[in-house]
């Protein structure tokens, strides 16, 4: 079916989560974008950032891309493919669903990911995203 118009109300922005060892409480949209475009690869303490994403066609990934990164998923895809095939970076690690995302971000030092709002948060830190 062709795309013509989207009339759905935008849902709440997904929550950005990091591993409990990451000492960051807030990021700007631009800083978060740098992380997800795989240019920002280290946290301020020098720890490597491990980026997790959901599959490209997941509704949560679409919301996260549009609302938190202010990009469309195809723009992110293009950046990752350009990095991958020009050797200037590596793409993020894709996980199957939100449950796996929570599990991997909680268990991987330096990790960052995103989940739906309204989830109970344990063993994870939420990062506030500001303009």
């Amino acid at each position, binding site marked *: 079916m062709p795309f013509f118009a989207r009339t759905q109300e935008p849902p709440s922005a997904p929550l950005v989560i990091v591993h409990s060892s990451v000492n960051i409480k807030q990021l700007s949209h631009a*800083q978060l974008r740098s992380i997800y475009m795989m240019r920002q*690869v*280290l946290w301020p303490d020098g720890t490597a950032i491990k980026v997790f994403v959901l599959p490209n066609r997941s509704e949560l990934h679409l919301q996260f891309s549009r609302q938190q990164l202010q990009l*469309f998923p195809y723009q992110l895809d293009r950046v990752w493919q350009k990095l991958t*095939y*020009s*050797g200037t970076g590596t793409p993020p690690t894709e996980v199957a669903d939100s449950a796996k995302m929570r599990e991997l971000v909680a268990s991987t030092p330096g990790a960052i990911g995103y989940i739906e709002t309204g989830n109970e948060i344990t063993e994870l830190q939420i990062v506030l995203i500001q303009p």
Partner: protein
Amino acid sequence: MKLLSYRLSSSSLKPIALMVLALTTHSAVAEDWTWHGFLSQGLIQARDSNFVNNDGDASARLTEIGVNSVYKIDNDLKVSGQLMYLNGGNRFVDGVRIDYLFLNWTPYNTLDWQLDLYLGRFKNMHWAYSSTRDVALTRPLIVLPQSVYFDSFRDIAVGSDGLAVRSTHNLAIGELEFIWSWGATPVSRDMSRRVISTDVLGETDQKFVHQASAYWRPSESQMQWGLSLLDSDFSYRKAELDHYFDGDFTVQRTMFNWRYSAEHWELTSEIMQERVNVKGFIFPQLVRNQFAQGTFLLARFDWSEFTSWYLSYDYFIANKDDPSGSQLPLTSGGFIPSYFGYQRDAAISVDHEVAENFRLKLEYHWIEGTGRLGPNVVPDVVVNQHRTHDIWALQLLYWF
């Protein structure tokens, strides 16, 4: 009609077999070692031109295979390399090549400023599609707009051996990116024959290519603006018995690019002016200074989650003071027809994701003028005897 003109010797099959073997294994992701690759094969026919072959028949010379790896030595030090096999017929030199192999040092990496240095053989990062122009899945079209992405020049423009620096800044006005590079590309005789003249016998050397570019992505905007500059010198040293003389060439390009991205459609445009200065070569006293101009507008529209359409219009003139090429027959003693002075290309393309990581592309170009058919300095007037010509192509892509 003749059968598809595609022949491979056993020696050329060996590296392909090794690559295919690597491609059949899954993308391996270890903590410090990452592998990826791609494989694409197509059919292409460029009728009434030498773009793919000299007889204008359909050809399977549309092959791109690559495997790459990044090894993380430390958090701020990586080695990246890509081995490729390309076959594009007359478009570029066929065979296996090291596409890039460089050391990437990241001396500065904060939340608002990232600085990277690349030493070795790196890709040209300065234009909209230059760094991955030979990776089919990253290209909007099977045949990119030739005004900017002139295939005969591909092997020289695609990358360099040298040093590059990239700096990205998050500021209140948006994101700013600066890229600088200096290097050169070894030029084989086969490459010279595609760029300069089909019958060169001497040695061509790229003395240097110096490039700089700046990109601005304004805050709260889906636009991107870019400016890139290029300066490069070449020399030709004639063989003992040669039709040509020693010569020096200078190429200087100024280019703007622009992109607007909406959720289901996108527009991209690049506009360039290129100064080509030739001293000698055709006869020792020759001094020719010419400004070429070119631009394209490319639109993408997502018809569905799996299907996208592309429309492109590309316009090139070899000499801005003679856009119709009317002076060419006069200055060449009738040797070069006027239609070598320009090229206009209207293209339509569609791609469809047939399965995960598999894509099928179909494309058609209607072209008037032969200004962007190689070679560039002494054009092939024997094969390119038609003012209008066309290209159709079909390509299947796989990547991991």
